[in-house]
């Protein structure tokens, strides 16, 4: 399977975590793709931390407006009932627990739900943007990432080796291979992809996995 379709599968699976009435923040990359899989008729409001609730689909070319972008700096559109506000109120929403679900990319996740996704020592540091606030404040934090690095090394580890974005903040990890919940007792494997096995997932995971009642990952809604 191509990496592109793997990423789509991750986005599809995460879309199953959406619930009617949720306010959701989507990070850059795979998380943005989740918007394409919101179940028909479900009332989901997308938050953009640069100061908007109610993101709609990408505009048509003629509708593009420099005054209307998302936190990824992409041109977007509004929906009926959208609202705009400043960065201070936007992050008051985030820290205050008013965002039901934040979906972010990850470089590493630890056994206790620590997340590293903003900085690789030795590389040029670009900044954490709003990620540290989103993970500290959102009610649920789902990390969307490939299960391993390109060289095959595990990204789910006993503890992160990269600088952290947040400590104990991740609720759930969804990869191309598995769904893993972060519980007080550690990582709980709950789903594996159709084309893999519990053993393969275990092998490609650096941290201890508790094995629950493992089901097959479902991608459609």
């Amino acid at each position, binding site marked *: 399977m191509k990496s592109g379709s793997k990423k789509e599968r991750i986005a599809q699976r995460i879309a199953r975590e959406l619930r009617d009435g949720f306010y959701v923040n989507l990070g850059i990359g795979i998380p943005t793709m989740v918007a394409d899989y919101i179940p028909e008729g479900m009332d989901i409001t997308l938050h953009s931390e640069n100061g908007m609730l109610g993101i709609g689909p990408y505009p048509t070319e003629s509708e593009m407006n420099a005054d209307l972008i998302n936190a990824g700096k992409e041109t977007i559109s509004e929906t009926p009932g959208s609202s705009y506000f400043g960065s201070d109120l936007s992050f008051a929403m985030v820290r205050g627990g008013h965002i039901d679900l934040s979906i972010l990319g990850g470089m590493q996740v630890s056994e206790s739900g620590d997340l590293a996704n903003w900085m690789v020592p030795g590389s040029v540091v670009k900044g954490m*943007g*709003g990620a*540290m*606030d989103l993970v500290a404040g959102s009610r649920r934090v789902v990390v969307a990432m490939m299960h391993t690095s390109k060289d095959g090394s595990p990204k789910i580890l006993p503890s992160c080796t990269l600088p952290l974005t947040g400590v104990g903040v991740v609720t759930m990890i969804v990869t191309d291979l598995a769904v893993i919940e972060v519980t007080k007792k550690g990582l709980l494997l709950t789903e594996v992809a159709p084309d893999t096995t519990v053993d393969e997932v275990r092998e490609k995971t650096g941290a201890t996995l508790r094995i629950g009642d493992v089901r097959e990952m479902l991608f459609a809604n």
Partner: protein
Amino acid sequence: MGIQYDPAEMIAGIPDGARIMMGGFGMCGIPENSIAMLLETGQKNLTILSNNAGVDTFGIGLLINSGQVSKMISTYIGENTVLEKLLIDGGIEVELVPQGTFAERIRAAGAGLGGFFTPTGVGTVVAEGKETRELHGKTFVFEEPLHADYAFVKASVGDRKGNLFYRKTTQNFNAVMAMAAKKTIAEVEKLVDAGGIEPESVHTPGLFVDVVYQGANFEKRIEKRTYRTADR
């Protein structure tokens, strides 16, 4: 006292080494005209507080290229390759702040607070060297207000009392920065008479604004042109 309508004198009077906040998120809602004037007046050694650092050829990037900036306080500078090189060479200092903490520290300055405890960044490099405190079972880190000498902000509409209205996602850091600097210079796309903005829809009341003026030739660049094919 009293509001002014020409920014030239105030911008020319900015001293070397000043701390200047600049509104905007990416290229959206940035004070293009005030940046252009600062480029001409040529002050050096500036500390710029802004969410981003512009791109190589626009926005704050222009001031970085001209060597006027010695320090950036930002949340994400990933779109500026010139700055990346300067960072590696040590030609510029960059202080990175989480975006929500950046907004809240600026608000704290504008709101006269001495600081606050936030959950953001606890256990990360951001909290290193700072006081942390357990409050009602949760850990917070202490953050101080971020003040500035000047704020350059950009609004869609301004009136002659200095009231400002921002369209769509252009409010971002503009409104909060207008509160936090000793002097606030607001450029607007359209300047109207007092009363031209609905009183309930004023985002930045004029008491935060020292200069308001109508900018010329806004470029309003788009950083990422994402669009779908029209269904029709």
